[in-house]
């Protein structure tokens, strides 16, 4: 054999060695990756989603909760930009169709039980805002809301001790949402009785609903019957069905 042939053989041996090592590492890595993927997706579910993903949602919640500032506002718009008619979405918890006259709002967890009429709420400082309602599905509309700040209601009927959460429920608890206290007290979190200048229709949540543009639409609960102050993280209708509990913007 010539030196050149010997050198060529050495190159080929080197290539074989590198190829074997490279492709074995690649195969092991691919198998490990695929295994991790299968393992993750087959973990027991917590509220509709494998627990590692639920943990990740909660990690993200803590992170963004730390960064949260009540001074950051959802953008407001000229009334000319209102989306008309306002899209109707989500009727869970709206049956039966109660009349506004018989409707009452109950607050649980205040110093003493509170029952309010719509006129009681109208006595709070009146707020109006034209904001974007962003649905978790991906679409968004611009809506004008009239109502009172949840923060003002809470200041008037405060919990005896500071609480971490606020729970809101429809009559009969057909639909329910949980809010962290910072989001509940955000200046743009309104208990609204009018949409685009008109009293709420029943399918928009008459007589009183939540307008909370710093959360996805799912948190904008309609026809509120009960507000509860609590330190126990409240159940959330969609949060129990695989969605992020926090849903904060």
């Amino acid at each position, binding site marked *: 054999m010539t030196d*050149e042939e010997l*050198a*060529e053989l050495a*190159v*080929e041996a*080197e*290539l074989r060695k*590198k*190829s074997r*090592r*490279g*492709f074995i590492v*690649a195969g092991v*890595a691919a198998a490990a*990756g695929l295994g991790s*993927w299968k393992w993750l997706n087959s973990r027991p579910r917590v509220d*509709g*989603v*494998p627990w*590692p*993903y*639920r943990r*990740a*949602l909660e990690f*993200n919640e803590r992170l*963004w909760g730390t*960064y*949260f*500032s009540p001074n*950051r*506002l*959802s*953008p407001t718009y000229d009334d000319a930009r209102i989306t008309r008619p306002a899209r109707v979405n989500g009727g869970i918890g709206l049956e039966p169709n109660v009349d506004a006259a018989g409707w009452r709002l109950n607050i649980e967890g205040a110093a003493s039980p509170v029952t309010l009429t719509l006129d009681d709420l109208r006595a709070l400082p009146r707020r109006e805002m034209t904001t*974007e309602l*962003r*649905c*978790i*599905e*991906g*679409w*968004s509309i611009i809506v004008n809301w009239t109502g009172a700040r949840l923060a003002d209601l809470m200041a008037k009927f405060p919990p005896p001790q500071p609480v971490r959460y606020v729970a809101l429920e429809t009559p009969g608890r057909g639909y329910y949402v949980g809010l962290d206290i910072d989001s509940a007290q955000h200046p743009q979190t309104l208990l609204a009785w009018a949409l685009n200048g008109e009293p709420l229709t029943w399918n928009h949540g008459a007589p009183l609903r939540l307008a909370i*543009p*710093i959360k996805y639409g799912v948190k904008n609960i309609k026809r509120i019957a009960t507000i509860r102050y609590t330190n126990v993280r409240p159940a959330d209708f*969609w949060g129990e*069905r*695989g*969605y*992020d509990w926090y849903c*904060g*913007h």
Partner: protein
Amino acid sequence: MKRLERKHPLAIRWFHWLNFPLLAIMIWSGTLIYWANPAYVTLPQSVWKAFGVPYRLAEGMALHFFWGWFFAINGFLYVLYTIVSGEWRQLVPDRKSFREAWLVMLHDLHLRKEAPPQKKYNAAQKISYTAIVVMGLFSVLTGLAIYKPVQMGWLRWLFGGYEVARGLHFVLTVGYVLFFVVHIAQVVKTGWNNFRAMVIGVEVVND
């Protein structure tokens, strides 16, 4: 004379092969999200169904906000590595690259005989491999703008609002799919020696 030439550093091979499944998961979970409101283009329900997409919005979001971390971190480390190692010099196009890339394309389409001289990457590769990284950055930024449009209000504003940011996020994803198609075609065309180098790091060179 046959010899082995070092082509891709180990770190770049890892970044590349980690990015492949990560980006695939991001596109897949993004599709699960997109189905809930297919605002720009849509497919017949039968096609969505054949791919198992419908009614998996919650799962899509959970995947997206879990794997998004790994996608972003891998991309960040890749850029950091190319800067620290000096590898960026092979990747970032210069003024000549844009004219050269045109000649490369003519050559690839068999409209021109000679390809312009190149080092590790030709001009078209430099442009696309740099563009894809910039696109990745913009995917993360537009993603943050629609993920936290209030807390990241300045980003939302920068991209022209929530709706526009969402549109950009979508267009970028279409860009990845197009990149993937061309990339695979080019890898197949270039052959095994080139592909193997992305796995084992070295390429066989005949002088």
